[in-house]
Structure formats: structure tokens, C-alpha cells
């Protein structure tokens, strides 16, 4: 569902941020991408949404080339960024409505929006509040609400839980596992080894633009992910 084939990105300043990355994430799978700051995680995710153009290889979502047909590819993927930013002067519901309609779903009513906001755990009284009064956790939740309403089979999240308090982080992960249960393919970059270990079906570790390790859940069962991570970071 989410696929990278020899995906390479060299920035204009000559920095090789991503070097022949290969990924394949199936429906019903959570793939956690680990890596230090500057490893190339955000670059990878940006390539899937055509925010930037690759210098080599292809990114595919549901088989659609993200560079050749970005609109077609984006139809099948939802995006949650590290720091979800929305229109501060709009209420939560207005933001949700705008982005959902933009995603092509225009048949929904107020109640549908409220339902999703309840589902992601936003407090009832905040539904019609302006987003500029929201805490980071609330914004992340609203971000995932937008992603959920898009009903895309692929979900790509860039460090969605960084900066969230433990409770909010746990709630967020619970949501993700629920979405996996619905059969979504989920790619998530994170620093949070413990959470990754808890929920990931596959874990990949990146370093300086190269995917240096990839292990599935079964292989991780009896190993200490933290040790593996630190070991890879050393060399």
C-alpha cells in the first residue's frame, strides 16, 4: 500500500538526505520509522505527498506514483504532521469540515464531525472553539480526526506523538491500533522506542538517509529494541 523503491533525495545544497530507500507497508500494518534527528524521516514522508520532488526512485501509494500523479496518490493517503497546524480563527469543526471537503467528502453533516472528534478524544466543549486556543495534544487529535475522515487506506504520520503528555500519547497510540484494525496501512516516524515496540508490526531504523535495519514484530519479540537501536546508532 505504501511503497518506496530506491527512493533518493539530494537537496539543492548537495545534502544527500535519503539514499535508495526501499519500503513496503501492507494494509493492516503499522510501520515505525526510527532514527536520530536529521536521519531523513521527514524527507521520506514529504516525498510521499510531493511536498518535495525526489531525485531518484519512486514513492508509491496504492500503486500510484507520487511524483507523476500526486493528486491521485494523495487521494489514498492521509497525513498527520509532527505539529498539526490549522487555521487558528476557525473552530475545530470548521477546520475539520474544510479539510474533509477538500479531501473530497462533502456529504457529511455537523454530527459526523462531532462523532469523529469524540472518537479521537477531544473534549465536547472544544468542538466549536477556535483552534488558536488549542493545546498541542488537542491539535494532534484534530489532525488525526482530519486523517480519519479522509477515509484513505494509507496513513502517514510524522512524529505525531512528540511533545504529547504520556496520557495523550497513549490515547493516540490506541487510536492508531484501532485504525490498523480497520485495515489501514500506517507509516509513522517516531523517537519513541517503547511505543514503537508496543504497536509496530515492522520497525525500521534510519541513519543518515539509509535504512540500516528492518525487523518485524516476531523478530523483535525477545530482543531489546532499545539496545538494538543504540547499537546501530554507534556504528
Amino acid at each position, binding site marked *: 500500500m505504501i511503497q518506496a523503491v530506491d527512493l533518493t533525495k539530494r537537496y539543492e545544497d548537495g545534502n544527500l538526505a535519503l539514499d535508495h530507500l526501499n519500503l513496503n507497508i501492507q494494509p493492516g500494518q503499522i510501520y515505525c520509522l526510527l532514527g536520530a534527528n536529521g536521519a531523513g524521516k521527514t524527507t521520506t514522508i514529504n516525498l510521499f505527498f510531493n*511536498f518535495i520532488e525526489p531525485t531518484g526512485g519512486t514513492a508509491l501509494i496504492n500503486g500510484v506514483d507520487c511524483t507523476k500523479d500526486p493528486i491521485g496518490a494523495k487521494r489514498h493517503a492521509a497525513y498527520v504532521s509532527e505539529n498539526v497546524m490549522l487555521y487558528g480563527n476557525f473552530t475545530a469543526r470548521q477546520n475539520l469540515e*474544510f479539510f474533509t471537503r477538500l479531501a*473530497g467528502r462533502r456529504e457529511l453533516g455537523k454530527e459526523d464531525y462531532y462523532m469523529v472528534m469524540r472518537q479521537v478524544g477531544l473534549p465536547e466543549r472544544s468542538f466549536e472553539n477556535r483552534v488558536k486556543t488549542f493545546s498541542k495534544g488537542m491539535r494532534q487529535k484534530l489532525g488525526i480526526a482530519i486523517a480519519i475522515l479522509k477515509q484513505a487506506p494509507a496513513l502517514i504520520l510524522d512524529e505525531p506523538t512528540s511533545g504529547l503528555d504520556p496520557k495523550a500519547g497513549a490515547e493516540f497510540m490506541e487510536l492508531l491500533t484501532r485504525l490498523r484494525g480497520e485495515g489501514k496501512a500506517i507509516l509513522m516516524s517516531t523517537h519513541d522506542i517503547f511505543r514503537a515496540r508496543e504497536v509496530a508490526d515492522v520497525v525500521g531504523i534510519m541513519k543518515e538517509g539509509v535504512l540500516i535495519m528492518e525487523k518485524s514484530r516476531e523478530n523483535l519479540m525477545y530482543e531489546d529494541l532499545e539496545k538494538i537501536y543504540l547499537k546501530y546508532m554507534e556504528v
Partner: protein
Amino acid sequence: MTGILDIIRKELLINLLSLRFIIGLVVVMLLIGLVGYVLTLDYASRRQAYIAAAEQHSRALEDAKVYSTIKVEMDIPPNPLSLLSRGSKDLPVTITVSPYHVPTILDASGSGATISLDGTGDLPVNPLLRVFSSIDVGFIVGMIMSLFCILLVFDSFSGEKEQGTLRVLLSAPVGRLQLLAGKYCGALLSAATPLTAGLLLLVILWNISGLVTLTPADWLGLACMYAASILYLACFLALGILISLFAEESVTGLVHQLLVWVVAGIVLPAGAGYVAEFLHPILPETELIREADENYGRAYSNVRYQQTEGSWNVAYTDYAGPESFLGITEKEALNRVEYNKIIFPMKFALAEEHFHIRDAVQRSLERREEARNSLDAISPVAAYGRIVRALAGSDIGSYRRTFAAARNYRESLMEYLRPKVATAAWVTRVLDQPELQPTKENMSYWNERAKKEGEDVFLKEWWNWSRVKPLDLSAMPRPNLEVPGLRERLGDALFPCALLMVLTAGFLVMAGWKLLRYPA
């Protein structure tokens, strides 16, 4: 496609909720309303003055007693659309046509025709007009609304990027060009709102006050002006969005846009004016005219010397008051007719010569104007100003046509007057009325009365100019100046309009090109 509508809606909503939009809306509406109101009163008083002057001038012709002093005042009817673009206050409201003067646009600077209205000095003068005289609706749109446009779009893309919303937007299945189109249309609708509201306010005011009545052609002209204003806003917004795509940060974008605004609105037009003045110096009109006058003066003295054999006689005095010609003999009057047959064609020729000099000056002014127009052609502000003035009939093109119409009229007037040249002077009217001549019978009759009633009876009753019958001018062609036709005005506006369109399209294409390469 529906994605565009969503983006337009969102842009509109965001703007409506933003302080800068509210402030802009209020300021623009207030300004258009206030300036429009003041100019409406001004237009009403100009219209009233026009009607009064036209009536007075046609009455003046009814009392005309000699052909040689016939002078036709052609009143220029105020154009209702000049409400939106007043034009220079130095432009004439009356063009004087006489056998001795061919009107040119230079009359506007006071060299020939009257600029003020005679006898209408007690016009209601609007004190507010002094403050707002140079501000009209065209200026508000040209300078203030363009500033408003800049404030609307200076952070169109850089702002969304800084805010972090650009990626969320672009993660939706909308194309970048679609996003551009949506944002652009949203901004255009937002910018058009205060303009539309302000103009509606004005139209309502006109209807309620009854001060302005518009013909269908005026409405059409107004609609064209509205469309041109929207086109102008569209051009500025396209430029603004383009700059916002090139700016790394919103603040630098704002600075760059203000710079562009100053250059396009002030530096370019003013600079173009100076350069054009330098490139096309105006001919020394007064010098050439003095030369022509001196030549005429010499020729005139020669003729006069030959005709009168060196003697001075009241009959040959051109500039004495009419009373001095009353009481001259028939023989003297007939001599005078012969003299007139030579002198009047000379005077008409002098007028033509003056015209050729002025026409050359006029054309050099036009060339200067053309040079200026091509120098600041890339400034949307200048192009818009040109469109509005052309549509309002307050540009040089309209005045050129008005003066050409006045000259055409003068031609027909001269056709009528030329055969009457010999009888064109005061003195000849005496020939029409024998009772005014100093014949023997007349003299004895008036001497009798003078003995009884005193000496003043000669001047009071006999040689009194009021006893001379007015001329029958029923066959004389009458003046008729009309507001220049909309078709011609549209023709003048066409080129700057096309220019604005090309500029707008160019800015949009460049913005699209840049956006496709824009790292989100």
C-alpha cells in the same frame, strides 16, 4: 474543481474573520462613500452651473448687434462619470469660439478661452471639495485599494507555510495550480467586496438624493469602470501572490510589495512625467505668437495707412466703443465697409496662424503624453488611471475630441460669418438704420429737442446703442457640445485594459510556474 470552491470559501471566511480585512473594508467604504458624496455635490453644482451658463450664453447671442463681435461660448456638459474621476481642475468648462480665436487644448491653461464661468461667481462652493478635490474614486481604487490588496495577499503562500497549514492543504488531493486558482479567486472576491459595497453605497446615494441621473450609456460606462477596477485589483493581487511566492518570509514579502507599490504608484508615473518632459520640450508658444502678432501689426499699419492716406478718422478705429460710431455719415460708413473688406480677412488669417502655432504646441504636448504613457506602461497603477480617466472623459483624449468638435463648429460659424465680413463692424449697423445717421433732417429734429430737453438727449436717445436693432441670427449655426460618446471613450480605454490583462496573465503564469517548484 469543487476543491477550488472550497478553497475560495475558506479564503473568504479567513479574510472576513481577520482584522486587516475588516479595517480595510471599513476604510475603503468610508472613503468611497465620503469622497463620492462630496463629488456628487460637486457634480450637482457643476451641472447646475452648466445649465445656467448655457442659458446665459444663448441669451447673450440674442442681443448680438454686430457680426464682428459675435463670440460663442460653448459650455462643456459635465460627464456624470467624472464623479469617479474628476480630472484636473484646470480643465475648462467653457470653450470660447470667435472669428479671432481658434480653440485648442492650450486654452485650458488660460491662454485664450475663459476658464471660469462669467456671471456665475455666486455658485454654491462646497468647502469640503477643497480638501478632497484631488481625491476621487479612481484615486481611492488606484492607490488605497491596491494597498489593501497587498495587505490581503502579501503572505498568501509564505504565511500558510510559516503557519504550517500549507502541508495540510497540499496533503489533500488538490493540485497546486488549483490551490493557486482558489486562493487567487478568494482574494479577488475579498478585495472586490469593499469596492462593490462602496459603489453600491454611491448608487443608492444618487438615487435617494436625486442629484445624479444616469442615462443607459452612463450605466454602461459605470459598469465598464467597475469591471476595469476589478481587473486592476486582479492585477495587483496576482502581483502580490507572485511576490509572496518568492519571499522567504512574510515580512520580507510585505516589504517587497510595499516597494513595488511605491514604484508602480508613485516613482514610475512621476519619473515618466519628468523624463517625457525632458524628451519633449514644449515649443515656446508665446514667443512664436508674439512674432506672428508683430508681423500682423506691420501689415495692418500698412493697410491702414493706404486706406486712410495717413489721416486718422474715427471710422477706422477698431477698438473704440460702439457709441463713437453712431452719428457718422453714410459716406464715412461706406468707406469703412471697403476698409473692412481688407482688414477682416487679415484678422481671420492671424487667428489661423495662431492656431497653427498652438496646434504644434498641442501636438508636442500629445507626444509628451504618449512618451509618458509608454514609459510607465508597466505600472498597473498608471494603466488603471488611464482607463478611469478615459472612461470618465477626463483624460487628454476626451478634451482633444471636445476641442476638435469646437473647431469644427467654428468652421461652420465662419462659413456663416465670412460673407458678412464687410458689414461685420459696429459702424455698418448704422447703414441699416437711416434714422441713426446725421442727415440734415435728423440733425434739425434732434437739435430742436436738445434745446428743450438739454444736450444729453443726443447720447441718451439718439446715438444710444440700445436703439440699434439686434441681428437676426436665426440662420447662424448653433453650438452643441456633447459628452464624448462611450464608444470613443471605450476605445481610449482599450489599450491600457489590454495591458492590465497581459500583466495579470503574466504574473499568474509566473506564480504558477513558481508554485509548481515551491518546496512545501
